[in-house]
């Protein structure tokens, strides 16, 4: 365009061409600034720190190569690390299964219209608005050994948050409760997109409810479910607040998730190098899982 206008002086023309080249980047500038300073730079700095011994101000003092990693994986702190790994894997497994089940059940419950339908949907979606820290405070009271609601209902005196048999389980339940909202929102939207005539023709062919669920709902829902599994797994891996507020990783490290152990390492024991190494390991795990899931998607997800 600019070249055609012979009336404008060439200097202005050039300026304009240059400006049009630069303009897209001007729009991106604020975003890129934030990402560079608070995401890309710290990410590489974490990698860098993970190969150093640090002082308590987090300054890199001596290059140690992979010693931090070796310490965690096979050395002096390996027992604690593998324990936290095992806790995290079980936690992610149960919370993902629980969250998905709650999402599917609640979505099916409101699938057909009935009086109170809108109210029930609002309630099922509500946990997305609730802070996990505030919810943890409520649960702290509900689970209290002498005056808590749960013990009152069951007529027991169980110390839910400090008994190795129960603590992990109740933490999982709280996480599932919190995850219900987002699972419900995505899965119920996915269900609404399934064409109604599929069910009708299946009914005509005499399919029962279970057959319809197995052969229509689940396959048609598989893209949504696949997406939701990734979200759930990533969220569960990063759960921190409820552990910090309710159990501090105890009792006997039974809820010491890898994320909480990173927090302890860095901000309680000031071993920033070692904590950085743990973070990088966690990052790699999440990345590998996401990639595996995308691989698996190609094989098993059904797109109509």
């Amino acid at each position, binding site marked *: 365009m600019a070249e055609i206008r012979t009336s404008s002086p060439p200097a202005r023309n050039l300026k304009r061409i240059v400006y049009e080249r630069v303009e897209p980047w001007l729009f991106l500038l604020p975003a890129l*600034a*934030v990402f560079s300073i608070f995401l890309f730079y*710290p990410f590489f700095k974490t990698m860098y720190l993970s190969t150093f011994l640090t002082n308590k101000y987090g300054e890199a003092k001596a290059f140690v190569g992979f010693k931090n990693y070796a310490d965690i994986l096979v050395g002096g702190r390996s027992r604690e690390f593998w324990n936290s790994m095992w806790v995290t894997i079980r936690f992610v497994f149960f919370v993902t299964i629980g969250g998905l089940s709650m999402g599917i059940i609640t979505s099916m419950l409101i699938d057909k219209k009935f009086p109170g339908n809108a109210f029930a949907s609002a309630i099922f979606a509500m946990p997305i608005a*609730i*802070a996990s820290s505030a919810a943890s405070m409520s649960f702290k009271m*509900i689970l209290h050994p002498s005056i808590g609601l749960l013990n009152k209902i069951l007529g027991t005196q169980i110390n839910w948050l400090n008994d190795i048999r129960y603590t992990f389980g109740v933490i999982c339940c709280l996480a599932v409760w919190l995850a219900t909202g987002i699972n419900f*929102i995505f899965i119920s939207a996915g269900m609404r997109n399934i064409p109604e005539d599929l069910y009708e023709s299946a009914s005509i062919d005499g399919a029962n409810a279970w057959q319809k669920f197995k052969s229509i709902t689940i396959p048609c829902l598989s893209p949504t479910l696949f997406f939701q599994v990734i979200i759930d797994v990533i969220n569960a891996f990063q759960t921190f607040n409820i552990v910090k507020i309710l159990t501090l990783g105890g009792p006997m490290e039974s809820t010491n998730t890898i*994320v909480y152990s990173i927090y302890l390492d860095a901000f309680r024991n000031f071993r920033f190098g070692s904590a950085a190494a743990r*973070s990088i390991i966690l990052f790699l795990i999440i990345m590998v899982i996401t990639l595996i899931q995308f691989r698996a998607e190609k094989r098993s997800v059904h797109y109509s």
Partner: protein
Amino acid sequence: MTNTSVSAQRTGLTRRQRNTLWTSLRMLINLPFVLLIMVPLLYTFMMSVLPADELYYRLWPSHFDFTSYLLVFTKTKIPRHILNSFIVAGSVTLLQMITCSMAAFSFSFLNFKGRNVVFMCILATMMVPWEATIISNYLTVAKWNWLDTYHVLILPYGCSAMGIFLMRQHYLTFAKELHEAARLDGCSNWRFLATIVVPLSRPALGALGAYIFLQQWNNYLWPLLVTSTDNVRTVQIGVASMYDIDSEQINLMMSAVIVCLVPSLSIFVFMQKNLINGLMAGAVKG
């Protein structure tokens, strides 16, 4: 091969009766799940209004005692924490609406070299867990003497991949001709964004805003790490630090939980449709 008329005969009910039966059954099965989600909140509310002498043995108060709410606002630092949360969450929301709109505009309306590469790089950051950056970020802001300020709570959240992605998804639904026509009329890209694109994308922006505000209002770890004084502490930290088990404190603590839930639940109630549609737009088309 059975068909529907057979099962109707077997149960001996007309179609209409069966529908009514199913509807009531549906309501009945919904009830326990609705309760499951609601009970923790109802219980929290009950505990906040139970008179102190009934706390240990009653669930339903003989009368509603709201004095602890008064105490939350007069005797604790919670009002200040709420103000701080509003300042921080509001600023982050505003900032992200601006930065994400601008970036999304560039990615969807403008053509330039490296556009896809940069966009993929930004999307890839969604996979990076916060643990991988939070340690270094903490060390950085500590070195800059940013601890205990508002900007340390605001600036790191000044933009988000999710926000850019959502806004871009929305902008892609705009007709390209709109942009071309505006350009031919001599409208600059900045003016086009501010006077045409932004007003037309109010629902998407609203959804994004509500999402960001909720996220910030509920943020816990970062404020916990970088603040240590009541002047800048946000409400989640304030509430979480109130745990104590003597009876007066239980009322107070549960009232504080309710108070800090009110803003986020109101946003949820008023923005529910918009928020859910906005989130879905990102997920389904992505």
